[in-house]
């Protein structure tokens, strides 16, 4: 299983920023974790500018977003997390994200959104959907 930071290595290669965003948006179409089911309001990830829904079910994360870019990012991260080893999951924190240095690729707002997604993943994995603070 590849490391989390490897997910983003392709993004650093693109010279044309439009190619970079097209790649991210394309991941939203390809990711297995992106689901068309109807999500509930309480499943919205708090703190995201765009709306991103996340659900933990059968030990897998599924997501959906109204933004093509956020959907791509969410799908990439959820796909990786669903297949990550136990130790990879345990070692995966906000710091993992900070260490990648996404600033050239994602705006501060988007980076905050990804950080909020990671927090939510960790929360739901520990507490489950029923204890969602949004509910």
């Amino acid at each position, binding site marked *: 299983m590849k490391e989390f930071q490897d997910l983003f290595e392709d993004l650093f290669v693109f010279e044309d920023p*439009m190619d970079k965003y097209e790649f991210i948006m394309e991941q939203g179409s390809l990711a297995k974790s992106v689901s068309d089911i109807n999500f509930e309001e309480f499943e919205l990830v708090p703190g995201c500018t765009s709306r991103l829904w996340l659900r933990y079910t059968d030990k897998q994360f599924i997501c959906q977003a*109204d933004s*093509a870019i*956020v959907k791509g990012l969410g799908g990439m991260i959820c796909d990786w997390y669903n297949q990550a080893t136990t130790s990879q999951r345990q070692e995966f924190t906000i710091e993992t994200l900070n260490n990648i240095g996404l600033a050239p690729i994602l705006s501060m707002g988007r980076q905050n959104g990804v950080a909020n997604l990671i927090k939510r993943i960790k929360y739901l994995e520990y507490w489950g959907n029923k204890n969602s603070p949004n509910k």
Partner: protein
Amino acid sequence: MRNRFPFFELNPDIIYLDSAATSQTLDTVIQDTNDFLLNHKANAHRSGHSMGAWVDEQYHSAKAKIGEWLGINDADKRIVFNSGATQGLYDAIQLATRDQDDFSVFVGGDFHHSLALPFHSTGYNHCHYIKITDSGVLDLSHLEELLRNDASKVKIIAITAVGNVTGTINDLEKIRSISKQFNAITIIDACQSMGKIHHNYDDFDFVAWSWHKVYGPQGLGCLMIDPRWLDSSPVRPGGGSITSVSYETQTYVDNAQKFESGTPNLQAIVTLPRLLDWLIIHQEQIISHDQELTKLANSLCKNNPYTSETGLITMIPEVGTVEDIALLLDVNKIMLRGGNLCAEPLVRNVSANSGLLRISWGAYTTAEEIEIAFKKIGETYERISRFI
């Protein structure tokens, strides 16, 4: 006029269409800021030396020219310098509501957050919102109805002259007439109208605007007050607002400096005389240019909730979110605004989950830039729709 804005020579590939948020800066403003910091930096109203006198001269010249530009008398008594419209509106609202228990506020439904939030802090129960017509202007018959049915001792009308979401022009003449009929205090947010259209701002209690939206410096605004408010105590007492202080009392100045305690933003104020010279000379040309671009934008825009009358146009995205569209347009060096536009209640009403995209222009904007922006917006919709 574009050649007077160095930004465009330095950044020829950027299409800047966010002038309603902040405009680009006139060349004299940049020159005068530098000149002040390099050669003239001194304080106003305090220092007896020649450098202080030079600053005083610029300060008073700025107010006199604002008076000339707006066609008002007694500018020294009426023009308050502050940090921007947000502070101006806050101060106006403090002056109007301070020591009042029995008051009602009638806020235009197209309000910018800066106009409504200070009233929220006085208690939501005081606030009534004036409806917007289908064409995007304030429904003044609704305002009259609200005022007729209100028994409060003090009535305050707080409205925007031009909506920062609608781009429509509210009827200030009629609002002035209504305010007199009901003896109401008037607070006007003129951020999107100042310098873009002819308005008679005289005879209102408070008119606030920011200079960074009128080709000037950031961090400087004005609050134009009716001289009757000079009898009020300052919102923030401090140095510069008094003529004498003893251990027991103080005497305030009898002009608008009363509301400018502390050292004002002089490096910005000294840029105003030459900026105002330019605005006075070019006002008709600026207005005419704005009207041409407004007509063009209305003809090219789809999905706009309101037909623009000046300065800006908003649209509901046909696909995707405003954040994605603004980001992808940024890749094409097109700078525009997307989101709630500091007017969340109205934006939620017209575009519940998507927010709005806003294109806004200035004296330097070309028709070609507007045309390119709309073409690129169409292409961006197509690009995003492949992944939605």
